[in-house]
């Protein structure tokens, strides 16, 4: 075993340290019980081997108090772990409100990333240190999984659905990220690196060459070229609901029920408009399935978000 081997990768995000504390607590408890019980087995087996001289009078056949004791202790420990783990888990799965939002699209076998300003990169992720970063991820084809060991984050990236992941890098440096869900022949090559920079370096990296237009601007252009506005506008001629301010609101559906207009809802409204009809409207909207690609969708949704200035982050999805 070469010297550079460390049991866990370095702690490079705001949750890494607490994650490791929980992990090592659990390792401690398990080693204690695992070793303890295995030793007890060996001890009992040796002590009561056939022919040994020990007191065997009145061997126990069952004992209610013991049964309660050894169901109670593991239960209490398990529930203690549950509370700690659940708290950290909810933190790790609830992105802070003002996190900087990046888009990630996985496809066989690469990661495409787009920054809020529109800058794109492939298999590399530049982020400023000390900022809350939220990744909004989806896949073009099969299921992938975005895994940054040093940040202790991992999340499946699914087709037809947005999943989120957030982290706050605390140290500048380069870290690896991987695809952790088997996704076809070259799965093990679906690798990239995260470059954590000082905010100034990040800003100068952003401004360096090849800048694209921001996604919401591209989205606005798409909105116009697909003529969404012929229906989605104010007044009598508008046959669809007004989309300004929609993102993050509760939407009342025809036939009862409410949904929160989050990314997944917008996506579904564009690709499967017949699925959920807004109360008071007709099933008129054509589907844009096959016409808008994964990136186009991201951009359209970014546009719809940008015209909902006070739209809060949607509640967690069902």
């Amino acid at each position: 075993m070469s010297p550079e081997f460390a049991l866990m990768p370095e702690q490079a995000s705001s949750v890494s340290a607490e994650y490791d504390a929980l992990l090592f607590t659990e390792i401690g408890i398990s080693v204690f019980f695992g070793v303890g019980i295995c030793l007890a087995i060996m001890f009992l087996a040796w002590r009561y081997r056939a022919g040994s001289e020990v007191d065997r009078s009145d061997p126990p056949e069952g004992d209610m108090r013991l049964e309660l004791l050894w169901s109670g202790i593991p239960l209490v420990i398990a529930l203690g772990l549950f509370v700690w783990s659940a708290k950290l888990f909810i933190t790790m799965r609830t992105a802070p409100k003002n996190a900087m939002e990046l888009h990630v699209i996985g496809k066989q076998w690469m990661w495409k990333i787009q920054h809020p300003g529109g800058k794109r990169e492939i298999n590399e992720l530049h982020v400023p240190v000390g900022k809350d970063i939220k990744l909004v991820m989806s896949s073009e084809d099969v299921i992938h999984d975005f895994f940054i060991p040093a940040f202790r984050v991992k999340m499946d990236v699914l087709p037809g659905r947005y999943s989120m992941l957030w982290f706050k890098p605390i140290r500048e440096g380069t870290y690896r990220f991987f695809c952790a869900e088997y996704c076809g022949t070259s799965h093990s090559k679906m690798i990239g690196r995260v470059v954590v920079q000082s905010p100034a370096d990040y800003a100068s990296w952003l401004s360096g060459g090849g800048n694209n237009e921001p996604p919401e601007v591209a989205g606005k252009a798409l909105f116009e070229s697909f003529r969404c506005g012929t229906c989605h506008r104010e007044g009598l001629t508008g046959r669809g609901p007004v989309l300004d301010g929609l993102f993050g609101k509760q939407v009342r559906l025809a036939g009862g029920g409410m949904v929160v207009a989050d990314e997944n809802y917008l996506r579904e409204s564009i690709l499967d408009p017949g699925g959920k009809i807004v109360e008071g409207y007709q099933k008129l909207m054509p589907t844009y399935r096959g016409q808008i690609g994964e990136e186009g969708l991201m951009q359209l949704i970014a546009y719809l978000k940008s015209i909902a200035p006070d739209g809060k982050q949607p509640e967690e999805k069902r």
Partner: protein
Amino acid sequence: MSTDSHSHGDDHIHPPPSNFLTKYVFSIDHKVIALQFFFAGFAMFIVGGLFALLLRWQLAFPFQEIPLGLGKFFYPNASGNLMPPETYPTLVTLHATVMIFFVIIPLLTGTFGNYLIPLKIGARDMAFPTLNMLSYWVMPPALLMILSSYFVQGGGPGAGWTSYPPLSALPQASTSSGTGQTLWCLAVFLVGCSSIMGGVNYLTTIINLRAPGMTLVRMPLSVWALFITSVLQVLATPVLAAATILLLFDKNLGTSFFLPTGVAVGGQAITQAGGGNPLLFQHLFWFYSHPAVYILILPAMGLVSDIMPTFVRKPIFGYKAMAYSMSAIAGLGFIVWGHHMFQAGINPYMATTFMVSTMVIATPSSVKVFNWLGTLWGGSITFATPMLNCLAFVSMFIIGGLSGVFLAATTIDIFLHDTYYVVAHIHYVVFGGSVFGIFAGVYYWFPKVTGRKMSEFWGKVHFWMSFVAFNGVFFPMHIVGIGGMMRRIADPTVYQHLAPLQDWNVYMTMFAVVLGLSQFIFIANVAISAFRGEPCGKNPWEATTLEWTTTSPPPYYNYEKIPVVYNPPYEFSVPGMEKDYLMQTTPPEAV
């Protein structure tokens, strides 16, 4: 209770079949069917083991030639005897599929369930002998399909034993998702049918055909275990059948149950796709497959609980607690499936709910462990081969159970999911648990089946080699898992951070070779002892349950006279008796 089950009166004995075909091939005798499952299961154990060794070879020496020119044999279509990259996922998929669906389930429920249930409850056969025969005969086609899938155009199934769509449903995304995957779906569907037929039969048999006096609380724990397992089989397997059929439709008939709108492969839109949900498949799959992991372990727990008292010469500790905890495991087993989907994008509050139920299931599991410990306490223990395997079972199950608790903590699972840590966990429970349980059972009941004992010496050699090599292969997987080695990767050397771990991969592979080779000792022991073994009488281990009252091997009709049961199953070292055990059939007058 069962005193009314007199339908098979004492005077009603069927004559054994005289013709070869009905005696050995299309037999309706539960003992012959059990042996058919045994031979099929064991043959597949060798096949699955070979897949595993090929995997291990690749992980230790990526894309290097296998010694002795064996590459030519295993990778016939490849150039230069090297494994083609597309074959690796196929090996992973087939290894797991074969081991779970074609080895452990058939060996535990097909072999031990069939052989032991009627004998242990004092019945002449299963309730539905023909259904029993059918449950075996759907296996050979399934077996042929899964084996031939390795050779078809495009390669065998390669989306993992979990076969998540869209990967498994779209040949565009992976060549192995063509004919190979179709065969996988059909084969798993057929195995599921076999499992359902078996489960229905075992349930009916245990409920209706118990001998007079065999009340529920006099049933050996193995029968309890098989009863509870059958409930799981009957309730959960139909969901697996549904999932595989829907996947088959998506793959071949253009439906879109699991394919969401907007899927495109390589920029090409998949027009068929729309409205489906890939998570639906995961829910269906795990709704079956979590209970299925208990199908894999409960019968082994039952076997071990039966065997230990015999070698400890003491009743099992906490008989009722054992039966209740198995029922609790099975019941809770239906509400924990979401723990396989913590990272799949399900709502964090839902994940937390699944975490509670999963943590709670650790309680009945630990109750079982402590009761086995209590059984040892105050006993007089002989370390015969079956007993050694039982002790291995208990200690390996502890390690596997503890690592399960890590994974059950949603937060911990974020890092460990999809790494070798999970691989270590499943092998501690399934190999360390179920397989050692199966070994214990084979060594223990072999004398009953053949009338001869297996060699103790070679049994112990086999045990110690397997035990040491097993831990050598799988314990380091916890460490490389925490060190960040992901599962289902064909070549760990492409990952920089895994470079320090590569030596471990080589050691694990060496132990794996030892583990594989030591199984030949077992096979030879079984084969030679069947003919040359020391003949034994009815009850070589001086055990107490019903099967030891009939001849070894038992006659076609099991019992000439249906036995009458007077005693609980594990009456050893009863004070004031001249022998140290009391058969279940010994009437109170005779004591």
